[in-house]
């Protein structure tokens, strides 16, 4: 275990009573696993007052688990969190709030049709007169907090009318009102423009000067390097590095995040798809709301086309458009050169286009059902006893499921095991297996190896390659730079800000791999 950077006072290995201005909050040995998947392993972390702490790592590295443990939303399997030497009662959001911890998530938890003021006062005991709320007196503290973060709009404005940047201010103000001593921010700049981000940074610096600790989670490494006093890197649930400002540069940070230098193109199987032939699938000038702007691309048979770019760049939305979950505002798709009419998921699947979704549990798995049912559900028509009649053959179903288990190396006691009890990697393999016998032409994989251990990841990659080799077109979405480098024949980079959407071909994995970590 690579211990975190010990601060002067807690160098003796985390004696809880060693008070110091530095080690205000100490996290020791925090461990959490979900259904056998280790999400966080023996994490040690010191958080000091008035410092900006960066928390970086690939998706599934354990950042959100750490934050959820702090917030009391998740209870760690073991490990301690102490604040000023006192144990934090874990698993209770109320206790976390009382301890002065505030959390601002990407999808800001504000009630849209309440005013900024009402949102800030939510859950705060209000001053009442004759049993009615005295808004004026109740809002004194809120207004002071608003002043501090520079909210230059009337607090009576309804939140739905505020910009995303202004909503961030409301959230920060809300935290300050509650005397927050630590504010954790998850991807704060994901949906902010450049100047808005700058303003947020100056607020963050101001807060830290006033003694508030900031836990800053972001994929944008330059921001993190620029803003944070200390950077902690998580990989596969472990803290692999903890550096003071200036010790790490961007290259070192990327290396810490993915575990080694970005692989050279020689490691990868070379693109064998026949690009002189006709594309299997093409998109032309596709737009949808603000997330996807004028995107055009082709996928050739046997090709893995990756969608790179940051979270929030519209990749998942684009995948939904291709898979028929949403209908594009403008633009069109064609399969084998024939235009595809507006359609739903079922029609997309009928034409051979399917999506393995990002949210494995909520959109992919039927948790209370067996592995066999989960794998067979998209190819039931193969399993009929007599093709003309709708009756299923139990033996055919078993044979197909057993074949898939062997083909993908799914580790399971039996095909009748409930899929909920399998590991994340094996669940993901089952979701890919679902499509192998369904006559698929184009498969979209959204973050296929998120939260999956290294071994299963290799096997998933193998399955994707095998599928491509059989002539299926693959669209791969991944925030994992390394995965893009290993699997993708071409990368389409999507940029997050409105109007700047450009889809480009980037050749040479070395170059393109770094692009999505801009």
């Amino acid at each position: 275990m690579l211990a975190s950077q010990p601060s002067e006072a807690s160098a003796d290995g985390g004696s809880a009573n060693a008070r110091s201005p530095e080690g205000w909050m100490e996290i020791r040995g925090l461990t959490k696993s979900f259904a056998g998947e280790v999400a966080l392993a023996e994490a040690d972390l010191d958080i000091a007052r008035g410092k900006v702490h960066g928390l970086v790592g690939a998706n599934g590295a354990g950042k959100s688990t750490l934050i959820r443990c702090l917030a009391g939303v998740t209870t760690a399997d073991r490990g301690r969190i102490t604040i000023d030497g006192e144990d934090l009662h874990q698993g209770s959001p109320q206790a976390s709030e009382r301890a002065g911890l505030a959390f601002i998530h990407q999808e800001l938890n504000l009630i849209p049709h309440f005013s900024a003021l009402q949102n800030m006062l939510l859950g705060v005991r209000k001053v009442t007169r004759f049993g009615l709320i005295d808004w004026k007196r109740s809002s004194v503290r809120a207004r002071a907090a608003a002043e501090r973060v520079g909210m230059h709009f009337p607090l009576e404005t309804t939140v739905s009318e505020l910009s995303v940047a202004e909503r961030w201010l409301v959230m920060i103000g809300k935290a300050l009102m509650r005397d927050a001593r630590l504010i954790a921010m998850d991807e704060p700049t994901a949906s902010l423009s450049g100047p808005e981000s700058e303003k947020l940074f100056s607020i963050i610096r101001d807060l830290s000067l006033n003694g508030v600790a900031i836990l800053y989670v972001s994929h944008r490494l330059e921001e993190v390097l620029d803003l944070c006093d200390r950077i902690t890197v998580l990989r596969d649930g472990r803290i692999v590095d903890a550096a003071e400002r200036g010790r790490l540069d961007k290259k070192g940070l990327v290396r810490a995040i993915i575990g080694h230098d970005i692989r050279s193109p020689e490691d990868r199987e070379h693109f064998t798809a026949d690009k002189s032939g006709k594309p299997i699938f093409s998109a032309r000038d596709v737009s949808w709301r603000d997330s996807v702007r004028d995107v055009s691309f082709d996928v050739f048979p046997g090709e893995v086309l990756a969608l790179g770019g940051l979270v929030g760049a519209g990749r998942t939305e684009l995948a939904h458009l291709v898979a028929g979950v949403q209908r594009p505002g403008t633009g069109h798709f064609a399969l084998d050169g024939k235009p595809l009419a507006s359609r739903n998921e079922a029609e997309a699947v009928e034409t051979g286009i399917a999506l393995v979704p990002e949210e494995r549990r909520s959109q992919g798995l039927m948790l209370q059902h067996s592995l066999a049912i989960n794998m067979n559900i998209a190819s039931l028509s193969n399993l009929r006893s007599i093709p003309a009649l709708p009756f299923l053959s139990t033996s055919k179903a078993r044979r197909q499921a057993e074949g898939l288990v062997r083909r993908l190396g799914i580790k399971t006691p039996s095909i009748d095991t409930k899929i909920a009890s399998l590991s994340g990697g094996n669940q993901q393999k089952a979701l890919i297996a679902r499509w192998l016998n369904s006559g698929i032409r184009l498969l979209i994989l959204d973050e296929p190896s998120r939260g999956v251990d290294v071994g299963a990841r290799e096997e998933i990659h193998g399955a994707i390659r095998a599928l491509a080799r059989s002539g299926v077109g693959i669209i791969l979405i991944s925030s994992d730079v390394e995965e893009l480098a290993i699997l993708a024949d071409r990368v389409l980079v999507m940029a997050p800000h409105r109007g700047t959407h450009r889809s480009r071909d980037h050749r040479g994995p070395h170059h393109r791999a770094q692009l999505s970590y801009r």
Partner: protein
Amino acid sequence: MIKHSDAAGANALGRKPIDWRRAGLVFLSRYGTIVGLLLMIVFFSIMAPNTFFSRANFLNILSQASLTAIIAAGLTYTLVVGEFDLSVGFVASFVGLIVVGFMSYQGLPIWLSIAGALAVGIGKADPDGELVTKVRINAVIATLGVGTMLTGLGFSYSAFPIASGIPRAFTNISLSRVLFGIPNPVFFMAGILAVLWVILNRTDIGQKMQAVGANIEAARLSGIRVDRIKMFAFATAGFCAAITGTLLSSLLGSGTLGVGDGYLLDAFAAVFLGSATLREGQFHIVGTFVGVLILAVGFNGLAILGAPTNYQPIFKGGILILAVGMSTLARRYAASR
């Protein structure tokens, strides 16, 4: 620390010490209802050895159970796909009224009256299904609304009970005993439950229904036409409710407003008891049948022991809460694993 390494060691071997509390919960969540049913039978048999424990009474129980079983099996389908149908009782009432009316007022032949009545039952699923899948009204509200409207329609069709002009052949459908002295409705029940079981467990559409109920997003992305599957479930529920209504009128030899309304609660209680049977929190036909038997045995036993009729609603309400409670616990337990 030592504790942790111990636990890790046990996990590495893939072996855990037996958790009795957990094992008890598993047993209870799977077999609790069946044990309960058996205990009830034993209890009533001891209390009333001559009256309760007799072939005639068991046939009586089965006969009473059959109408509930048919309507509950249909209702099971809507719950399998994750929806609700609060209109099944109203449908049974309405169909029970018009099937007799067709014969008595319109003078239609028996087969045509029954065919028409069943068609009404299936057709009623259409507005339900459209409202739930297209307009996306909560199924509770949609079916309650449509069901209530049916009550009004029934009232305008015939405000008075229809008791004359009903052919003997119609009442014989449910009153006669064609085989081994077993009442006919028992055979109807057996046939319908068998067909519904086969559809649910051995056909495409059954697997798709289960998928829709298990995870609607996953079902959609798997290419399942979710709306059609839900329509099918509503249609089945309507069809089964119509059969129950028809048999009910045949048994009573008359058509009366609101006669089948009471089946709604019985059916729900049975279906939820069933979902806490054998499988943890899933709705299925065999479970529903067990649930129906629990209700029928309970009512019958209480009546034989001479409990006043006002105990019936108390028993019924209690069972409903118990059933939903057990089902919820079973599901939560299944999810927590």
